């Protein structure tokens, strides 16, 4: 198991390498001059040129990449041009918030997806099935940022039931141990902080989770339908096993495999979707950092955040692959 994870992680390294090179090249051919941006507006052209050569921008692209790679290997990912802080620090500050949101959203999506998938499967062959299926198609047409806006309007503006900006009430002290707010609140034993953090998480996590539940519903349902066509289900019935036992012991484990693959892919998209939700809920995560950086053409941040997203996606994929092997004996080594 560990071996499989290690092997999969190893194949991710060249991908990451290529991604970082592509990011680097893509961002360096921009019509933006980082040197000019990093100087006060009053700087003279000569000063900017000096800055440019100091930043190494006058050298060939590959050499610049080599320098960047070398610095990165030593833990130096550069300074933000706009915020004038180390990029690594900025990412470290915002990453836990995004992970917290993504995990919460995935929990919501899984719960809704599995529940919905089983419910839809239970409706098979009935008249309500068509209506329920069409409903999932329609639900699939609501992207996360529309849910986010809708929730703000309904729960924030109309009902005024839940907060919809930030991660925590401004009046509360923010514990800073791991950066994962829910965990930190438990660690310092502040129930009010935990409660407020949860309340702030509900809407964004629900918006994001709701958008990603319908594909899970559909894949679970269709793979259950497939599995029920298989001989071993029929053979289990012929042995007189109860329907409940067939579903729990025989069908679900097989049907979980395609669902797992999908959820691995979905997790990648989820991080993309979290960006919008973060912007809409002013949630201080990677997404907001990224969007601000894009607006300010803050290249070191864009590069680092882009890379961070890639690392997250590759890490999730590695985990999902490992889990897949655990669940599917055919892939295990004999």
């Amino acid at each position, binding site marked *: 198991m560990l071996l499989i994870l290690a092997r999969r992680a190893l194949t991710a390294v060249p991908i990451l390498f290529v991604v970082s090179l592509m990011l680097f090249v893509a961002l360096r051919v921009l019509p933006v001059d980082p040197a000019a941006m990093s100087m006060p507006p009053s700087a003279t052209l000569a000063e900017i040129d000096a800055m440019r050569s100091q930043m190494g921008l006058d050298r060939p692209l590959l050499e610049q990449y080599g320098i960047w790679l070398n610095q990165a290997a030593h833990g130096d990912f550069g300074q933000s041009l706009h915020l004038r802080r180390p990029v690594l620090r900025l990412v470290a500050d915002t990453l836990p918030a995004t992970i917290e949101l993504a995990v919460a959203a995935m929990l919501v999506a899984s719960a809704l997806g599995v529940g919905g998938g089983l419910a839809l499967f239970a409706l098979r062959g009935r008249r309500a099935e068509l209506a329920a299926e069409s409903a999932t198609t329609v639900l699939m047409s609501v992207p996360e940022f529309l849910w986010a806006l809708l929730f703000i309007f309904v729960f924030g503006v109309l009902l005024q039931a839940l907060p919809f900006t930030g991660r925590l009430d401004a009046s509360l002290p923010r514990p800073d141990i791991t950066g994962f707010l829910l965990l930190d609140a438990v660690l310092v034993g502040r129930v009010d902080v935990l409660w407020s953090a949860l309340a702030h998480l509900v809407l964004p996590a629900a918006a994001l989770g709701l958008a990603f539940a319908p594909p899970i519903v559909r894949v679970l349902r269709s793979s259950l339908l497939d599995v029920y066509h298989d*001989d*071993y289900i029929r053979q289990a019935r*012929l042995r007189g096993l109860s329907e409940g036992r067939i579903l729990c*012991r025989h069908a679900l484990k097989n049907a979980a495999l395609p669902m797992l693959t999908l959820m691995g892919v979905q997790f990648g998209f989820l991080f993309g979707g979290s960006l919008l939700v973060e912007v809409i809920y002013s949630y201080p995560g990677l997404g907001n950092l990224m969007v601000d950086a894009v607006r300010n053409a803050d290249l070191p941040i864009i590069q680092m955040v882009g890379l961070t997203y890639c690392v997250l996606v590759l890490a999730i994929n590695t985990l999902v692959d490992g889990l897949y092997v655990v669940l599917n*004996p*055919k892939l295990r080594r004999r």
Partner: protein
Amino acid sequence: MTVLRAEGLTVAMGDVPVLRDIGLSLEAGQVLGLVGESGAGKSMLGRAIARMLPAGFGVVGGALAFDGADLLAMPAARHRALLGREIAFVPQEPLTALNPVLTIGRQFGEHLKRLGIPRARDAAIAAFEAVHLRDPAGLLGRYPHQLSGGMCQRVLIAMAFAGRPKLVVADEPTTALDVTIEANIVRLMAELQRGHGTAVLFITHNLRLAARICDDIAVLYSGAVVERGRGRDVLAQPAHPYTRCLQLADPPLTGPPRALYALPETMPGLRDAMRMKGCRFAPRCPVAGDECTRGSPPMGPRAACFRTELTGGIAAPSLQTQQHGVGMDNVLEAIGLRKRFATGGLFRRGGTLAVRGADFIVRDGEFVAVVGESGSGKSTLGRLVVGLETASGGRIVLDGRDVTRGGEAARRHRVATVRMVFQDPQSALNPRRRVIDLVTQTLEARGVGRSARRERGRALLAEMGLPPDAAGRMPHQLSGGQKQRVNIARALCSLPRLLVADEIVSGLDVSVQAQLLLLLARLRREHRFALLFISHDLAVVRHLCDRVLVMRSGEIVEQGAVAEVFANPRHEYTRELLAAARGH
């Protein structure tokens, strides 16, 4: 004591009956064989017993009793309690009948627990020993995909007999298995059946197999029992013309060679059959008279037939003297042919060498068979010859020219010389193209004009015995036998010198198989081509071919004239194959 009794049982899909007025009874400790071709409805009885008819199907009349209790009317819970305990099932496809993500031990344990058998581990090991599985303790921790088909079937048989059931329903339990394994499985089932005094309902398409192992046989045609009797009698002296024709369509493996009797057309479809007033077999029956089309014949002591006394007179046409005129030139010469698959997985044992050093020739106009069991490399051999695989070593000489190494010129020579007929017409015919375009594909590749292609296509279809309107149809609008004819027509379009045919009659009903074998023999007379006939069916090979290559694990272990090899097999494996096929 009667274990299973069906009286007037009628199963219908909507208003179309698929089983009509079935009357059968099975006594304790007896084996009843239910024989029929595809579409006869033979699987429906097993499904009715399990109360698992396909959606839209239902029992519309009659009674079905197990051990005196009404199977159809009893509450679902009571019926389910019978399954696995009193009534057990052995499936057709052992490899897919076990859950792939659970170990054998988990699945067996689950079953034993439900049966209330204590000390499940010991009981499972004892059960596996009883079905002669090696290393039963180690087997418990294995997954189904780590087992062969034969081993899976043994596990499933052990499962079926674990609860000492009164009735075991076995639906084509050996069809998916190799011939040597089939023999073992049949022997094993007979052993357990006698040991436990179990009643067995044995559903099969194979009349010979049924006659060998069943006490009683019922023959189904178009949803009704047309003949029943003692197993031996039905095979020795069929009372119904259909049974007689089936027997004559099946090429013999022992005794003197004889010509085959090919029933014309196919069994009527369900809807067509419903509209027929008389005997449903009448349109195909060689001895049918006027009374046969007027009313349905009632079931007599043996058969449902008005003219049962004429059955014995039905005979196959006399055998044509074997003058095929095999030439002296070699159409195909294979020298030290080898094939290694780079990424393994295909053959677990002995690495990935699929073909190891094959030497053989095929002469002009000669029919050469390649026989062997699954995984023997016989299909790979055929694919090497036509060029679908590239040889890892050795040489292939086609019609005097070395085509081993690819290249455009070699490819063109191959296209002109050799053609392949694929096993599964479903996959071999593009579902989006019309029959006329499919059969003239070769001409299309050469840039022959449309009207010339159509003309040749029509002629070809007529020659294949296909109706003229087949030209405009799509493959899915054809029956299995018709598809295979189109498949053959395509290969023969440009009259190649060598045809490679991979299992082209397996999976077809005996009557359709006989039609195709007769067709091949006729085409051979008219066009003179050589055939490399890949098959697992020794009886068919004996009937059709001149010479035979016996393959095992990628090696040709014996080759020679068919009559010679079948009469005096020299290799141990050939003897084993022949013995299994003859049912010894």
